[in-house]
């Protein structure tokens, strides 16, 4: 019995190609919010302790809310959606394994971190990249 949720994705043949145009379209819908949030983040790390995963994982930096939104939605925005599947899979692990979207993260500058992580989840899902919990009902 694995102690973590398995993140192997069942990928169907037609969904292996990533559609950068679709990702860009999704990003553009929230462009203002993403752009301003990335600029407003002064990388102060004060959000760290508001994340229970950060405090319960020996304060590993990758659980810090700022780290998670910078390396998911932030990364997608900087690359203008031009990412490959491997990159999306890395993002998937950040936004599903390292974050449970409990929405308790606190940003001194008022950045809506859960909103941005949720957006990254939506983008991953649109490309068929999401965790397989083994209860999808497909088979």
């Amino acid at each position, binding site marked *: 019995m694995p102690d973590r949720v398995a993140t192997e994705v069942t990928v169907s043949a037609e969904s292996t190609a990533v559609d950068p145009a679709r990702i860009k379209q999704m990003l553009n819908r929230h462009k203002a919010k993403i752009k*301003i949030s990335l*600029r*407003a983040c002064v990388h102060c790390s*004060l959000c760290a*302790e508001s994340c229970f995963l950060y405090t319960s994982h020996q304060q590993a930096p990758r659980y810090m809310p700022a780290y998670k939104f910078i390396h998911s939605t932030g990364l997608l925005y900087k690359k203008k959606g031009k990412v490959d599947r491997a990159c999306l899979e890395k993002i998937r692990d950040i936004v599903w394994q390292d974050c449970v979207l409990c929405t308790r993260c606190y940003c001194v*500058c*008022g*950045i809506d971190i859960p909103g941005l992580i949720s957006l990254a989840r939506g983008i991953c899902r649109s490309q068929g990249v999401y965790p397989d919990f083994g209860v999808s009902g497909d088979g």
Partner: protein
Amino acid sequence: MDSTLRMLYHLAQGPLVWAAFILFWVGSVYQVARLLSLTRKMETRRRGRAPDEGPLSAARSTDGQPGRWSARLRLSIAGTHSLTIGVSVIFHTLLFMVPLFLLAHNILVDEAWGVSLFAFREKLSDYLTWLFLACVLFFLLRRILLARLRAISSFQDYYILFLAAAPFASGLLAYHQIFDYRTMITLHMLLGEIMLVSIPFTKIAHLFLFFVLRFLVNHEYSLGSGRRAWR
């Protein structure tokens, strides 16, 4: 060499001051206007404030008892990161106060326009500048030494810290006449001008963004009316 310095000095104390102030104001007004255009007024609040239950509610001041405020503070970010928040408050206050109430700056303004603000004694400004530079050192060491800061730090984080510190450091050296005064004061003016222009166009823009995001945009931790949402 001397003529280049003289030219730079005259440029820095004349046209560049105007250019810097104009760019700073135009850039700032543009940024704030753009921020407001990127958000819209909401009909109703979508996400409310923090629930009334939970640890904060006990600390919420309902009957105005004096103990409640300290409890609120302890449960806030100032309680979690007392040192960093303390240093940050001192740093940001001095960043505005020292140049604004510096005697030398006010004499220049007085000579030009015949008006000036109240000014600190020179000795006090000197001490406050040292205190400011100590705060800069604190932020720099924090950024270098803490793994969680290194994980998200970029070149711009160091650059804006440099931009904040450089006019203070060069001003201090010029005041104490360490190194060549003329070079130092020219450098001080140029660095100050670069800093001013950079405010609206770099991460220093958190000067405006902080107020828009914390006071105007609606979310759980809104400090103000929080009646705006992203378009």
